[in-house]
């Protein structure tokens, strides 16, 4: 077992998943915060689903969609793209599970931005895109960042959906969580404990950084 490869793979995948989630997540959070439209509650519900469903259930839904015989999988296969049981599935599972956390936190951030600022910016001649990037997003930035950090942390520990669509293929899709599971299931306890130690170290490190960041911000 290559503990460092597994660790590196997990962190890189979680980072990629967070980056993947940011544009659509922030956009959805913005739209939900500012606009009323028919079907709004449906969008809210779908976005929140991975938060409420058991992760393996979400994983099963992803599998049905993305496997070779699934609706999306079929289309991807015609393009020569393989998703299930590859590293792409790991990133997708992480992004899916982290998305609701990002959207909810970012949305709360946008809702707290006083619309007066946006209105004044409009009277000063700014188009909606400029208002978003120069006013709304910077003012909501702390929440957006907090949401991204939450989503990243969730991605690091993601297991249920990952094991469903990515499996536990050594060297290919084994994240820390998945590897710990596989090793304990097959009696390789000592290997599992090594990974447990690494996971705990990462968790401590992340919490320490998060605490330091919130201390630095003026009250």
């Amino acid at each position, binding site marked *: 077992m290559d503990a460092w490869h597994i660790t590196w793979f997990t962190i890189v995948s979680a980072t990629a998943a967070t980056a993947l989630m940011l544009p659509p997540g922030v956009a959805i959070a913005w739209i939900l915060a500012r606009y009323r439209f028919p079907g709004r509650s449906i969008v809210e519900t779908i976005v929140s689903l991975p938060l409420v469903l058991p992760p393996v259930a979400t994983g099963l839904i992803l599998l049905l969609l993305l496997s070779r015989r699934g609706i999306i999988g079929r289309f991807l296969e015609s393009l020569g793209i393989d998703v299930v049981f590859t590293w792409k599935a790991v990133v997708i599972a992480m992004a899916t599970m982290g998305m609701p956390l990002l959207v909810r936190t970012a949305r709360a951030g946008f809702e707290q931005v006083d619309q*007066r600022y946006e209105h*004044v910016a409009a*009277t*000063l001649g700014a188009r909606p895109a400029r208002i978003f990037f120069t006013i709304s997003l910077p003012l909501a930035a702390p929440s957006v960042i907090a949401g991204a950090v939450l989503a990243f942390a969730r991605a690091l520990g993601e297991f249920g959906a990952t094991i469903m669509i990515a499996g536990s293929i050594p060297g290919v899709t084994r994240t820390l969580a998945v590897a710990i599971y596989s090793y304990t299931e097959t009696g390789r306890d000592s290997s599992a404990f090594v990974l447990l130690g690494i996971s705990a170290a990462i968790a401590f490190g992340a919490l320490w950084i998060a605490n330091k960041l919130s201390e630095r911000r003026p009250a």
Partner: protein
Amino acid sequence: MIALDFELIQGSFTLDIHVRLEGRAAAIFGPSGAGKTTILDAIAGLRTPRCGSIQTHDHVLYSSSDGINLPPRDRHVGYVPQDVALFPHMNVQRNLLYGRHPGTSPEPSRVTAMLEIDALLTRRVSQLSGGERQRVALGRALMSGPSLLLLDEPLAAVDVPLRRRILPYLERVRDELGVPIVYVSHDREEVQQLADEVILIDNGRVMASGEPAVVLG
């Protein structure tokens, strides 16, 4: 300078405004809750009336019969809200320059000199006093080169001695820059000093309009 002929529904409250303002500075006077801020919002395009029209002498800003409803950014209206709303994450200079259009905006130095805010340019918004914020907000609105200036209770949040110091700036804007002003107030003295005409609003309707001395008695 502006003709208002519209009806606007806000919750359980209906605004029914029909008046023509011609002077350099017009005041909207009335008790709180009468709909004064809503009138400014309608002129700025932040609220849409149910029907009617809003026109300046060279532009139609809103006309329900012609299907015109210019978005705020196209109305060339400068707005200073009651809570000033300076962008908290930008310093004074960036606030001032936010709406600047190189072609149509006045020279920054002229505006900052007139409002005496040159020394404040690098300050953060949180470091400004109440009076300084008012002047910066005024400067920001002016820097966008508006054809009309809307001020919501520009002196309300400011204590009396400070009011006397800010009023001259407003007079300068009225006199030196030639930008017509429509502003909301519930201070008689201020209205009498600054405005050429007053409209009295109560319960969403224009009760009286004319010269300050006449309307306010």
